[in-house]
């Protein structure tokens, strides 16, 4: 009876000292031999997993629940079936992140997610003085060279309208504020910009206007040469003129010209921030109030124009605008009636 009890107690107590011996052996062995060659692959991974942990409670707590099934596998002494799924504990890393690019790729593959986004574009040159979707706020100086079809109210009693072909050169400063942006991972792209603009407009016989308004650009892509739709509108006001010596027949003199505020608007289709094909119009209000003496009255006039507007930094738009300004000034003559 006592011997049976003793045998029973051995049976009960037996595995525990073996388990505790195993656990005490594991931390003791790892400082001496970090790569222990044991029969079971699992136990070696458990010990290597226990090695990097520096806090003492973990080696005591972690191997305990793991060591029992590993012991069961070792004690079963059955040959490993190559067709069965191999359960293995992944190597624990010392710190975050606990996954690498291979794991992310496996996750994407499992859930059929698209591949990673392409790398973001390099920053553009010119410090965003040429507009780009990768820029936030931009400041740009634009020059426009356009063909203009002008018209002006003639003699009201006869219902005349004077029409003539002319040119238009315009210089604007645009302040583009990013009002609509989109974000791809941690890269922000501008979708739409809106902001104030101001500038001057030149046409034939030395007439020139100032303008003050707003400009909008909507990007249709994110590339360097992404197409864009541009719209701008402004109040236009006559400033003055300096007629050409040839046409005026006298020494050219700068004259101020008075006119109520009119408006100008245009729509453009652009490529990158470099340039745009522009179509627009301008209307100048008449000054014809009764209290204004007749000699100081001005009649209504306007123009439609089609041309090219671009950033002056790359040269061609400025050259085109200067050429248009010069040719218009020199060659275009307004009809008399």
């Amino acid at each position, binding site marked *: 009876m006592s011997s049976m009890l003793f045998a029973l107690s051995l049976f009960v107590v037996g595995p525990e000292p073996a388990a505790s011996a195993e656990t005490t052996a594991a931390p003791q062995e790892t400082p001496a031999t970090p790569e222990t060659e044991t029969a079971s692959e699992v136990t070696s991974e458990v010990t290597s997993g226990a090695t990097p942990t520096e*806090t003492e*409670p973990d080696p*005591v707590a972690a191997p305990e629940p793991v060591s029992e099934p590993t012991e069961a596998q070792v004690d079963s002494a059955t040959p490993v079936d190559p067709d069965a799924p191999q359960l293995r504990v992944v190597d624990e890393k010392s710190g975050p992140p606990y996954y690498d690019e291979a794991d992310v790729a496996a996750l994407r593959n499992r859930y059929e997610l698209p591949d990673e986004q392409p790398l*973001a*574009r*390099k920053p*553009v040159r010119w410090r*965003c003085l040429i507009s*780009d979707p990768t*820029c*936030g*706020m931009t*400041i740009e*100086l634009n*020059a426009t060279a356009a063909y203009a079809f002008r018209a002006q109210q003639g003699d009201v009693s006869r219902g005349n309208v004077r029409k003539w072909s002319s040119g238009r*050169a315009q210089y604007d*400063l645009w*302040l583009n*504020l990013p009002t609509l942006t989109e974000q791809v991972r941690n*890269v*922000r*792209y501008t979708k739409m910009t809106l902001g*104030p*603009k*101001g500038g*001057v407009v*030149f046409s034939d016989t*030395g007439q020139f206007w*100032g303008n*003050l308004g707003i400009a909008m650009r909507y990007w249709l892509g994110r590339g360097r040469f992404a197409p864009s739709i541009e719209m701008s509108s402004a*109040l236009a*006001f*006559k*400033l003055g003129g*300096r007629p*050409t*010596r040839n046409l005026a027949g006298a020494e*050219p003199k700068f*004259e*101020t010209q*008075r006119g*109520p*505020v009119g408006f100008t608007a245009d729509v453009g289709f652009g490529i990158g921030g470099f340039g745009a094909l522009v179509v627009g119009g301008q209307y100048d209000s008449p*000054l014809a*109030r009764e*209290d*204004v*003496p007749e*000699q*100081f009255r001005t009649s209504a006039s306007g123009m439609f124009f089609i041309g090219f507007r671009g950033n*002056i930094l790359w040269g061609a738009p*400025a050259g085109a*605008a*200067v050429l*248009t*300004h*010069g*040719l218009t*000034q*020199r060659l275009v003559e307004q009809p008399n009636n």
Partner: protein
Amino acid sequence: MTFPLTLLLLCTAPSEAGADKVAPATSTEEYGPFFEDAPASDARFQSRGRKDKYPVLSVGDGWFCFVEDSHCKASLLASGEVAAGMRIPASNKGPDLPYAHWGFRGGFAIRPLMLKRKPWHPWGVGIVSSWSRGTGAVTVESTTDAQEQASTDRTDTFRVALLNQLWLSKKPHAIHLDLALGTARSQVLTSGVALFGTHAEAAVGWGGWGSVYAGADFLDRDTRVMLGFRAHGIAAGPTIAAILLGLALGGAL
């Protein structure tokens, strides 16, 4: 053995967070949501106009800037402007007529409280002077016998004003509100006599690059109100050069 180690862990972790909370606020630190820097965001534009908070054309990391900005302690102001509005003479002098002008403005602005005391303060003060050439005046004076009309070809105005600025943000090209009060000297209507009057202006600007302004000149029986756009000289300079080139090409010079 484990207990002292766990106790060490428990002691170290919270005290690091506590260290931030108990740091005393110095006199130079601003406390308040209005003047706080915007929280850093991971998302950013790939291309940036400049690398840090000081503008490109600045000397001594913001001590003097050629294009004024939010973190500039002293700035040079130079701009070209165009404006349109109305000339409103006294009622018996003639009709209200449109008025437009183009001109140049230059000046100097400093942020006094940023010179020694604070790293950033919204208030700026300066002095500006400007010259403009605008449309001429028309006077129509009627008596029972006759009507006298007179006109001038142009109106030149010279102004000097004290400028007050309020910067609304610390970001690059921040919006700022400007208020200028000063004197203007110009020919009054068609009298041919230049007199002194008052000039007042309120403006909204984006950094030093451009601003939209509303201003008025109050002279004797001659008031001009205008709304205009101002561009920095670095942008206006090439424009003026191109304009002069076009005029020369067109035979107007």
